[in-house]
């Protein structure tokens, strides 16, 4: 309970449970006053998410040189579809489609993904606590996609995060949901681009029918949840409603971008969880998603998931209900819901339990050391390999349910063993020992700055390694104070 925690404990909960860990360049003392930690979270909500613009994403322009340039979303989609275009100037576009496997020129779809990930290693270092970034990561996982399935997913995964999830992370859930379901990455991931209304113009011609995949996961995972009271008929109804939600094909100048194809859309009215949708065209799907987005079962599902992610594997029904009420009352406004989470006294549980997820913990190493923009981005390949190895890299979960929140999944003997290796590998990749600051500062001093509540045993163990900053910091980042939440 919030009331039973000391200001120091509240600071720890704010950083390790709600945030991305201590920031070496942080400016606030989160335990300076009784409510400073909670206020810091509310301040970040008030400030809103960091915006990331298209122009900040720089990918290699060609195989021939290392020059990095930015691309527009339409260009990015074309690269995602493996359609080659000369990027500059856009008006003189020439196209050489390539075929087959391993026959790529840069930028590849995976270049876009790497660039997006690299830039985030810079952005993660900006906020004091990183609560809103954690919310972004929560929703990225909620709408889990697997980028290795298709180039268009890899190329646009970052765009989905920037322009939909980040955009609406403190907005309305309905807007986020609609944006995600219309995004080429999600359309392609869950096969809606190959879903055909059986009596639509093209469905008849091709004798093809709908594909249930996206509709099923919208109900089971994205909105009302598996116990949300839907049936197979609701799945089929929703699948038919969103037939025609697809992406432009190869031979179109807008290849890879979302569009509604009326010739694929199944005509007719269909019912989804007790409500009939008779609208024509794309509006039918929009209405169905808006219905699902504010459904009471969705409120319950989202509330439970938020609590399981940020607080405990076993939230009480009372906790769930309080958060679900905030969702219902605000019609699914995520700023209201996120604020309610922070203001929920029972969400502030005693620190030092459970284990932090590998990804957020890796980010906290970057924040704890502090890397300049270029140096942070240079960490990305290692960051990717390490997180993949720890089964927690974004856009790499195999199934649409996202990474699990259960603590037992992450707190295992091998996972603990791998953490120490992972921290060491990241520090080595970042060549942390080269930092001239170790001439005037000892790692044990940095440790006390970052973790004021560090145990005597840990402080002394780190101090013993002060002459070897790599090992000293390696130890710091796997102390219980850093690993636990």
């Amino acid at each position: 309970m919030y009331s039973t925690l000391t200001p120091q404990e509240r600071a720890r909960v704010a950083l390790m449970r709600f945030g991305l860990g201590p920031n070496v360049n942080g400016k606030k003392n989160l335990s300076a006053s009784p409510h400073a930690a909670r206020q810091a979270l509310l301040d970040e909500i008030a400030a809103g998410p960091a915006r990331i613009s298209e122009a900040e994403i720089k990918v290699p322009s060609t195989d021939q040189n290392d020059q990095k340039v930015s691309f527009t979303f339409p260009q990015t989609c074309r690269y995602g579809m493996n359609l080659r275009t000369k990027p500059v100037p856009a008006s003189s576009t020439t196209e050489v489609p390539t075929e087959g496997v391993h026959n790529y020129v840069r930028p590849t779809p995976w270049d876009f993904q790497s660039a997006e990930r690299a830039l985030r290693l810079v952005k993660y270092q900006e906020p004091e606590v990183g609560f809103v970034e954690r919310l972004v990561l929560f929703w990225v996982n909620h709408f889990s996609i697997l980028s290795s399935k298709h180039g268009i997913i890899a190329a646009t995964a970052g765009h989905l995060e920037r322009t939909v999830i980040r955009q609406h992370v403190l907005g309305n859930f309905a807007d986020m949901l609609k944006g995600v379901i219309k995004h080429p990455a999600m359309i392609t991931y869950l096969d809606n681009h190959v879903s055909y209304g059986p009596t639509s113009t093209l469905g008849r011609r091709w004798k093809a029918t709908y594909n249930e995949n996206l509709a099923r996961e919208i109900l089971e995972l994205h909105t009302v949840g598996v116990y949300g009271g839907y049936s197979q008929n609701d799945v089929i109804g929703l699948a038919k409603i969103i037939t025609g939600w697809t992406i432009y094909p190869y031979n179109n100048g807008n290849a890879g971008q979302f569009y509604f194809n009326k010739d694929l859309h199944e005509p007719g009215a269909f019912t989804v969880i007790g409500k009939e949708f008779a609208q024509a065209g794309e509006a039918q799907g929009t209405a169905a998603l808006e219905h699902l987005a504010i459904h009471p079962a969705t409120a319950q599902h989202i509330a439970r998931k938020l609590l399981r992610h940020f607080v405990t594997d076993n939230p009480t029904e009372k906790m769930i209900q309080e958060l679900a009420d905030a969702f219902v009352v605000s019609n699914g406004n995520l700023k209201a819901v996120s604020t309610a989470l922070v203001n929920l006294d029972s969400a502030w549980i005693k620190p030092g339990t459970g284990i932090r997820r590998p990804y957020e913990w890796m980010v906290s190493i970057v924040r704890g050391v502090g890397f300049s923009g270029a140096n942070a981005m240079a960490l990305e390949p290692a960051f990717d390999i390490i997180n993949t190895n720890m089964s927690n890299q974004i856009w790499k979960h195999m199934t649409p349910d996202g990474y699990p929140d259960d603590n037992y999944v992450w707190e295992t003997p091998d996972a603990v063993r791998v953490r120490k290796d992972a921290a060491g590998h990241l520090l080595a990749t970042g060549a942390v020992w080269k930092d001239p600051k170790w001439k005037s500062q000892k790692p044990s001093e940095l440790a006390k700055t970052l973790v004021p509540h560090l145990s005597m045993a840990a402080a002394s163990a780190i101090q013993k390694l002060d002459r070897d900053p790599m090992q000293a910091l390696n130890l710091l980042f796997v102390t219980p104070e850093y690993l636990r939440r």
Partner: protein
Amino acid sequence: MSAHDHDLTQLDSRIVASAAEGCEESKLLLSRRAALGLSAGFFTWAFTPHLAEASSSDPRLLIVLLRGGMDGLNVAVPIGDPQYAKLRGRLALVKENLLPLNSYFYLHPSLAFFKTLYNAGQATIVHAVAPPMKNRSHFECQRNLENGTPGDKEDRTTGGWLNRLLSKLTPADRVKAGALQIGPTPLILQGTEKVLSWSPTLWPRPAGFDTSLLNLYKSTDSALYDLLLKGITANSLATSTSGPALSPDASSLQLSFRGAAKLLGAPSGAPRIAVLNVEGWDTHVGQPQALAANLNNLDKSLSDFTAIAKNSGYWNDTVVLCVTEFGRTAKGNSDNGTDHGVGTVAMLAGGAVKGGKVVANWPGLSNLYDGRDLRPTYDLRQVFKSVIRSHLGVQDKKILDEVVFPGSSLISALPELIRT
């Protein structure tokens, strides 16, 4: 990620044909589902306490969870069923390209090593089988397969049946270390019994670092100390270099099977039960290539496992059991793939398997479940019970029917799967 990061897609031949007619939509780049993601394989192992009721043998069990829903109809193909070719259409496999199991069922050609085991009487297929839950949801059906409940009502049961089984066995002195796994713990092993884990060490720490950290944990966090110590111990067991020479060019799934084989072969205080996940059987799109690649990788991995188990002298005490959460629709879909179905196969291999036969109470493809899927005539729990009773030697009906698989007193073990 592996090469499939760069493997954009296959074009659907029907779409290609339509494209030739000038149909714009048909030029969409179709993708294979994430079906080639075998590289994500990881395994889990658990110590089996010495079984009080077992004979002098020292049984090993490797459970392979094929996640995504494997298409049993194209693994052990019912060539003898006249409906097969009709229903499957262009996805239908033809007898000439398959490996005969008997006059009715034929095996997918990518399972050549499995076939040699079958011929040697050390492998079998159980056909038209499914977990009790049949709602075609990956998550629900996987959960049901692993938690061992009847699946007939809303079920938030936590914990897996294999862990419950472990908790009921009698521990002997030589084994007390608990269980072991790589990566996320599958539900089947969750529960009160502690689980250990292993994965390859990619970035070793300088000498002395592990000791410093163990000492720190010992005085500050006994839970972390316990976990780290077990992790380090498991690693030294798993990285022993003895054994047969195997190809240096191995998939990560093969490496996982090899690690499992080493760990199961370790002599004293070693694991006797392992669980290994294989992702990527959800073949909605472009199934022929994806299924062949998956089966080929599985077959090679099984071959490596067998070589190590034989070399270590425990193959004759071994059962490898491959199960999946559901089968796939009897008809193909319009994307050269299949959608979520119900009935499928379970595959058993090992020196302890009474093999060389297909075990099926064949329902016929003219009698589909919900008019669309292979009708299951066996419950997967019947296979599990058979292995637990005849291989692990646990006969106690109360444990089997109420603890491991609650509410399953009417579900009987399938006979004749295990040599006794």
